[in-house]
């Protein structure tokens, strides 16, 4: 008899195609939204994680503290810090910014050297002082390109900031010591200036100074507002001499020996800088240290909240879809009261009537659920507001399961009402 009940249910659904279709659409949207929005949340958290990993996981970034509050290490991570305009005039300029502090020190190469001291900072693997040139116009054979970040640093920077090379080589310590004008460029700079020509060995002019390209970095991709490939990295002295002047450093990138020693390294360099800058308990530090691992966990927890929020909104639409099923099934039962009466009069047991309407409701929601999964999966193939959604498999299972449960739950009330009808009353119904 199960087969007959199924047949009756499908026949009932087919009799009202538009109504069945619209009800299905309600569930489709609910399930699709759950899958897609959870995928978007997941995708954006993955993207943020990738951006952070791209900066290197066991690195610390020391920057001068320019604001009063100082301690709060906010503002988007190392990628931003890199972009901040190059240091202004040394000494005087820095003192003006300090406000209430008795005396603020800039970050210097000597600071960096002190951090590299193996006895004072045993957890530190490498220290790279960094300056950023504010405006760097590069030119090659008639084409020119404004480089977003022109970085002057030491070779250790490449490893610390996780910048693998594509062609050519990094510059060396020798290049730094001998003040050579060599540069490693990012993919965007490479494509803009050289196109298909091999850049390695060519001379480019940066703000009137000639640099020789020794290497091209691998593509990193854009991170939010900024193209991480629109970058050029040259030895520190060469950049200071030709572009920024011998002023303060913009940042010092410190690489810990292992991810586990990052925290130890942070406290070691904090001690060193406190000592060198004369900072005691009551004074506010004139530098701040950004810890990538801390940043990562903070961001991943906030993106989890974001995902849950999106999922909750979608779940509400699924609930609304479920109420739609109840509504439409109630209409169906009322409309077919007479038919129910006939079926009962010729001996349909209660279970058969109950089953028929439950199956109708469940088929509606299951169909909507399956189509919703398809819609969610297809929708996830596209970028949503700049985020590539990454599907969470459990969200598919959950959404499908919930949609079937919704059919059973929201369908059971109308189905029960149909099954409980007394045949004589149902038959009298017009």
């Amino acid at each position, binding site marked *: 008899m199960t087969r007959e009940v199924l047949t009756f249910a499908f026949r009932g659904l087919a009799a009202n195609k538009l109504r069945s279709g619209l009800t299905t659409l309600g569930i489709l949207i609910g399930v699709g939204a759950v899958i897609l929005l959870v995928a978007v949340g997941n995708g954006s958290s993955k993207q943020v994680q990738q951006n952070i990993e791209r900066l290197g996981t066991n690195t610390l970034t020391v920057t001068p503290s320019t604001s009063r509050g100082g301690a709060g290490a906010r503002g988007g991570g190392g990628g931003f810090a890199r972009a901040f305009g190059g240091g202004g005039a040394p000494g005087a300029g820095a003192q003006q910014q300090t406000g209430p502090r008795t005396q603020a020190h800039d970050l210097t190469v000597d600071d960096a050297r002190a951090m590299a001291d193996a006895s004072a900072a045993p957890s530190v693997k490498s220290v790279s002082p960094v300056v950023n040139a504010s405006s760097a116009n590069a030119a090659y054979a008639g084409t020119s390109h404004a480089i977003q970040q022109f970085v002057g640093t030491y070779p250790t920077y490449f490893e610390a900031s996780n910048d693998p090379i594509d062609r050519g080589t990094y510059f060396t310590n020798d290049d730094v010591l001998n003040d050579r004008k060599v540069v490693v460029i990012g993919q965007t700079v490479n494509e803009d200036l050289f196109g298909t020509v091999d850049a390695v060995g060519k001379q480019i002019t940066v703000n009137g100074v000639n640099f020789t390209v020794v290497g091209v970095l691998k593509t990193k991709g854009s991170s939010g507002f900024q193209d991480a490939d629109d970058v050029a990295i040259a030895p520190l002295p060469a950049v200071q001499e030709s572009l920024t002047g011998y002023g303060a450093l913009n940042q010092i990138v410190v690489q810990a020996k292992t991810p586990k020693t990052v925290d130890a390294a942070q406290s070691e360099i904090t001690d060193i800088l406190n000592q060198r800058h004369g900072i005691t308990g009551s004074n506010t530090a004139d530098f701040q240290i950004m810890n990538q691992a801390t940043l990562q966990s903070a961001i991943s927890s906030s993106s989890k909240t974001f995902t849950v929020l999106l999922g909750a909104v979608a779940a509400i639409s699924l609930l609304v879809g479920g109420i739609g099923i109840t509504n439409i099934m109630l209409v169906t039962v009322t409309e077919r009261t007479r038919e129910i009466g006939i079926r009962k009069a010729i001996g349909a047991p209660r279970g058969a009537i109950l089953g028929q309407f439950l199956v109708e409701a469940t088929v509606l929601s299951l169909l909507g659920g399956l189509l919703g999964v398809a819609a969610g999966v297809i929708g996830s193939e596209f970028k949503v507001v700049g985020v590539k959604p990454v599907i969470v498999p459990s969200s598919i299972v959950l959404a499908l399961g919930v949609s079937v449960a919704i059919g059973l739950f929201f369908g059971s009330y109308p189905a029960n009402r149909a099954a409980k009808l007394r045949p*004589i009353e149902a038959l009298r119904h017009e």
Partner: protein
Amino acid sequence: MTVLDVRDVTKVYGEGGTAVQALRGVSLAVEQGDYVAIMGASGSGKSTLMNILGCLDVPSSGRYLLDGTDVGTLDDRRLAIVRNRKIGFVFQSFNLIPRMSALANVELPLAYGGVKAADRRRRALAALDRVGLSERVDHEPNELSGGQQQRVAVARALVTAPALLLADEPTGNLDTRSTADVLEVLDGLNAAGRTIVLITHEDDVARHAKRVIRLVDGLIVDDRRRTHVDEPPPGLVGLR
């Protein structure tokens, strides 16, 4: 053998001051093979009696034995089985299920009775043949005339080979020609031994029955036998 035995049945609708006594104590026994017409003006309680006989409604008091079983003691599930196996019901307004072919409509009671698909089809086709509609098995109710629809309904009522065929004004919505068709089918069924109880307010229809009962205000006032139970129905004799 007694197919149907009603003992002092009453039926009250509503409560208190507005209560309406539809049946005031009806006792009635119907033998197997009988052909009974219940007549009465509207409001006489004949439809109420019919619904009770068809197990669609329950009496307020009294007992009702169908084929020896006291229907009042049965639960919902058993009652459904009784309606399915022992009773065939024909309604005034046909009550076929729309958008289902005549064959599917006739198969329906068998489907609920758990009969296998092939067997079901064979029996439904035989029943439709019996009422002279073997040409129209695939037509849906809205493609059939009133008389044809009612004959499909008769086929649906007899397909389970029930002990009792109940017909509630089966010709009430039909023209003369269709009325004759349907009555001919009923007469034939009775001649073949089927027990039939029908409600009507037309004397022409009642003339086909072997026994005529008149109801007035919920009481039997007249119970007249026209032909012996074992003889063929008067409709067949008279028409020949």
